Every structure is written in C-alpha cells, then in structure tokens.
C-alpha cells in the first residue's frame, strides 16, 4: 500500500510538470504577458521592455518556467498585476468553489446513485424509460442554458431562491448553482450506475445472497451496490477536477466569486500570474483526486490489493 502510493506520487511528477508547462506556454508564448499592464492602449516599446526586464520576461521561456515552478514549490505564486498576492486571491476564491463542488458532488452521489439503482433494478419499466429519457435531455442541453433557465424560473419567475449568490456564498445559496454544475455529471452517474447494477444483478453472488434468504434491502445495499460502485467512483473522482474547472460557466451565470470568476477575470485582463497559478492548483486537485479514487477501489472491492 505505502509503496503503491509512493510509486503513484512519483508518476504524478511528469504529468504535473507537463500540464503546468503546457498551460505556461499557452499563456506566455501565445499571449503578450505585459499587454494587460497598460490597460486598453498598447504599451509603448520602452515601457514594455522595462516591464519585461523587471518581471524577468526577457529570459528564455524554459528559464522562466523553471523560476516559476521553483517559486511555486516554495509556496510563492507571484503577484497579480493589481498588486495582490495570488495566494491571497486563492484564499478567497477556493473555499467558495470547494463548497460549490461539494454541493455538486453531493447531488451526484445522492440523486445520481439513487436514480441509477432504482432504474437498474427496474430495467425496461416505464420509470426506467422515463429517467433514461430525462438523462438524455439533461446531457444534450448545454450547462449554460440549463443554468440560465433555472435561474429565470426558480430565481426570477417563481422567486424560490435568489437569482444570484452573495459574496459569502453560504451552502444554502449554492443549492441551485450546485445542481446546475452537477446536472450533466448527474445524468452520467445515473446511467453508469444503472448499467452497472443491471449487469451485476444477474451475477452468481446476488443469486446466492437471495437464495440464502437475505432481505432484499441487504442484498441490494451490501452485495449489489458495493460491487457496482467501482465505475461510478472512478467517474466521480475524475469529475472533481472537471467540476472545479468547469465551474467557470456556472459561476459566471450566478455571479459567484470563486475560482472560475478569478480565472475568467485573469484571462480577460491577461493577468498571467493568476491564470497559471490557479490552473496549477486545479491540475494538482485533479491528480490527487485520481489517486484517492484508485485507493478507494480496495475499500470497495477487497479482491483488489496494492503491492
């Protein structure tokens, strides 16, 4: 187990370096990193050259990347162009997005798995068909349309919730945005659980459990569900990173000042330090979530062991 974790952590290093290098190149080579400093007008050449020298942007790109990564590893993410520390921005933005992601994952786990189990056990019945059609509709409508419509209906027309989220972004306010963020994944979780349950329902161990007289509830929760959850857990694990990165759209619709908002502002104002810093953290979250999922396999299925 310990050796497995260490091996996985070592494997993460090249992926982490590659992903950060890629995003670093996208931001620094394709865009002009000092353009954002001069506002709407273009910088005059002398100022641009002085700024570039000041920020070390006249160095070769690989050297800039190494310097940057060296700083990041010591906890220094640099300063945004408005003088604020990037870590300070992260301190305000990440708690909000983490709360939003938690709400979304809660929806996925509770509603998605419950619907999946119910439909998987009743394959071919009207309830199953209805849920399947609903998931297809949810998947095919883009998230931002779902978000705008829910905001219009729940927030404005019927007045059940506030149409936008205050700067505190408490859990209660994040229910509707969380549902919107989760919607597509929720549909995938439902379909995945359904397939998995329907497949395992015919297996020998379920027949044995039924034959030895276990109550149906126990058969479903202890035998069937536990064995069917592995693909679902894989999906949810990889989804955590996607949710936090994909929150850009949801946060824009509901005016939530989280990671997506800061990133969007950073990209619009060409604030390179913010963008690279936030993406670096998101990549880390994605990698760690994947590792945790792989370790969870052993909890769900004791046959899987890590040497």
């Amino acid at each position, binding site marked *: 187990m310990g050796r497995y974790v260490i091996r996985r952590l070592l494997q993460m290093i090249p992926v982490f370096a590659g992903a950060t290098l890629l995003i670093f190149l996208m931001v620094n080579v394709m865009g002009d990193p000092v353009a954002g400093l001069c506002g709407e007008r273009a910088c005059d050449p002398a100022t641009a050259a002085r700024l570039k020298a000041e920020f070390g942007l006249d160095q070769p790109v690989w050297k800039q990347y190494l310097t940057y990564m060296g700083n990041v590893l010591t906890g220094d993410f640099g300063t945004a162009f408005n003088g604020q520390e990037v870590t300070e921005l992260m301190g305000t933005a990440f708690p909000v997005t983490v709360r939003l992601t938690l709400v979304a994952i809660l929806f996925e786990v509770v509603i998605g798995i419950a619907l999946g189990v119910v439909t998987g056990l009743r394959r071919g019945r009207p309830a199953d068909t209805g849920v399947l059609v609903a998931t297809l509709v949810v998947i095919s409508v883009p998230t931002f349309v779902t978000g705008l419509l829910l905001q219009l209906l729940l927030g404005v027309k019927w007045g059940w919730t506030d149409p936008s989220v205050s700067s505190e972004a408490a859990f209660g306010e994040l229910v509707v945005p969380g549902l919107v963020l989760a919607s597509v994944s929720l549909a995938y979780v439902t379909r995945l659980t359904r397939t998995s349950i329907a497949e395992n329902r015919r297996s020998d161990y379920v027949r044995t459990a039924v034959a030895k007289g276990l109550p149906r509830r126990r058969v479903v929760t202890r035998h069937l569900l536990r064995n069917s959850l592995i693909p679902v857990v*894989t999906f949810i694990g990889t989804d955590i990173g*996607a949710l936090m*990165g994909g929150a850009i759209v949801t946060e824009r619709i509901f005016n939530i000042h989280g990671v997506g908002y800061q990133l969007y502002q950073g990209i619009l104002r060409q604030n390179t330090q913010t963008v690279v810093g936030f993406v670096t953290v998101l990549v880390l979250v994605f990698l760690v979530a994947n590792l945790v999922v792989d370790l969870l396999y052993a909890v769900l299925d004791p046959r899987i062991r890590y040497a």
Partner: protein
Amino acid sequence: MPDTRRTHPGPEPEAGGRRPGERLPGGPPPGDHPTGDRPRGNRPDDGPDARDGAIAGTGFGGSMDLAADEGRTLEDDPGPDGGGPSGRPRSLWSDAWRDLRRNPVFVVSALLILFLVLIALRPTLLASGDPLDCDLARAQEGSRPGHPFGFNGQGCDVYTRTVHGARTSVTVGVCATLGVTLLGSVLGGLAGFFGGLWDALLSRLTDVFFAIPVVLGGLVLLSVVTSNSVWPVIGFMVLLGWPQISRISRGAVITAKQHDYVQAARALGASGPRMLLRHIAPNAIAPVIVVATIALGTYIALEATLSYLGVGLKPPTVSWGIDISSASPYIRNAPHMLLWPAGALAVTVLAFIMLGDAVRDALDPKLR
C-alpha cells in the same frame, strides 16, 4: 462542456492486466475452433468499452456472463450441431446493421441527422431570407406570420438564423470529430500495436492533456486568437480531444492484438502493416466509432459554451452558440430568442448521442 473526456470512464486497459497466455486457461487449443466463422455467442470481444474488454477478455475460457449469453443466442439461432449458424455466417457489421435497422431510436436519430446535414448544406431550402438582414425597429418582437420564431435583440429573424446556424455547428462538430478521430486513432493504434517506449510516452502525454480542464484550456488558448473563422475552435478541439480517442483505440488494439487470428497471421509471416490494417484495424474500430459519434454531439455543445464565454466564434458568423449567448441578457423579456436556438442545439446533440448509443448497443455482443 460538456466535457469531452467523460464518455468512457472505464479503467485503463492496461489495468486489466491481460496477457495472451492468460486468455485460454482451460479452453480448447486454437486448432479445435472452427476457423474464421465463429458462432454468434463467441464473437471476439470487441465491446466498445474498455471495461467490457476487461470483463469479456476471458475469450472462450468463458466467464459466466459470456456463457449465459451464448446459451441464449444459440436458442435464437440453432445451428446443425449447436456450434454455429447453419447459413452463411454474418459479420459483426452486417449483424449490427440488421439490428440497427430495427431500432426505432437509430432510425429517428439518423433521419434527424440527415435532415440537419441537408439544411447545413442548403439552408435556403427552408429559410430563404438573409440571416444578417436585421432591422432594429423589430428588436425582441415575438412571433408573427412569416416570422414564426420572432426576432432577436438586433431585430434579425430568429427562424432564419436558427436554420442558417446549423451549418456552423455541423461544420465544427464534423471537422473536429474527423480531426480527433484521425489523430487519436492513428497515434493510439500505433502505440498499442508497437508498445514499448513510444507507448509509455504517449500514455503520459494523454495523462497531461487529461489533467487540463477543457473549458479552461479553451478560454486560455482562444482568448489570444483574433481570427473570425471556425478553424481556431476546431483546432483547439482536436488539440484537447485526441487523447480521449487515442486511449480508447490503444486499448482496442491491444485487445485485438491478442486474438488468435492475429497470432496466426503473424505465424504465416504477415508484415506489421498488413496485420495492423487487415486484421487488427477492422476489429478495433468499433469502439472508436461509438465514442466519436457521441463526442460529435458534445463538440457542438462545447462550441456553444465557448461562444457563450466570448472566446468561441464571433459575429458576424451565424451560429447557435452566438445566438444563445447574445440572447442570454434578455432572457427575462424575450425568452423566445434563447429558446429556439437552444432547442435546435439540444435536439442536434441529442440526435448524435442517441445514434452513438444505438450503434454501441448493436456492436456490443454482451448486450444481446
């Protein structure tokens, strides 16, 4: 986005840990099996999903699932000695086609897609007006005779714009899917076939691309592009989409490589390209086709999302994404401006996803 990396979250095929030797623990030696034409239940496991490969990879060693499946299909189609069909055996593809034609989901979605392609090629068949012909005096007005969907914020006819928008969306979807499929299946297929160092490098490279959130990568890459055409958007989708297909085709090629007919071809002295093209590719392409069909729908939705964020296509290009995004501030006063293009978009994405599902069901022997 509709996130392009979500379609098949199965574990990597290498995690299945199958080796050629493990596949036939107690099974008959290869010579005992009727050559070439396998009976229906025993079809090689080219399930479109890496997970299926991992489960059904036992070949004729026979897991319980496969055995039950065989019993059922033999009943449907009794051969002279119970071992195979009596008539001319059907290939996987003709078999799948026979199933597909009877599947109403497939028929409906295929007809929808044909219709979409038709109006993408000839939008004037349905809407003779000019989508850029706008009159501010009519802005945000509802439907009226001759203009069934009403007018948008600039006073353009929503119906005309919705019909003409199909061309951009279909172009983006088809071109991005073609690019992703070509690049991904060639790279993944070669890596799976040759293995070794290149395979390891490519696998790490796909990991790198998977770690970058798609919408975010799009924002960063496309925010510096000033071009007005659809090509930067397509290029971005190919750049971030190929790892998904590459992973799937790599897994499919590794599974197909271990089959007996490939070993037989190798023993007969077939060259690498011949084995790859004649024996492996036709048996490994099914999962790629399924994922590519579903991905096509998600790319269309991704284009709309990027346009909504202001980095995708830009006016005066006519596209559903642009129309939805320009209608979103007015959703309270004039929801029709948003609902029609959004509805068209949803129906298109739905058609491709349903088509992919139907093709998967037809190609996956385990679901029969």
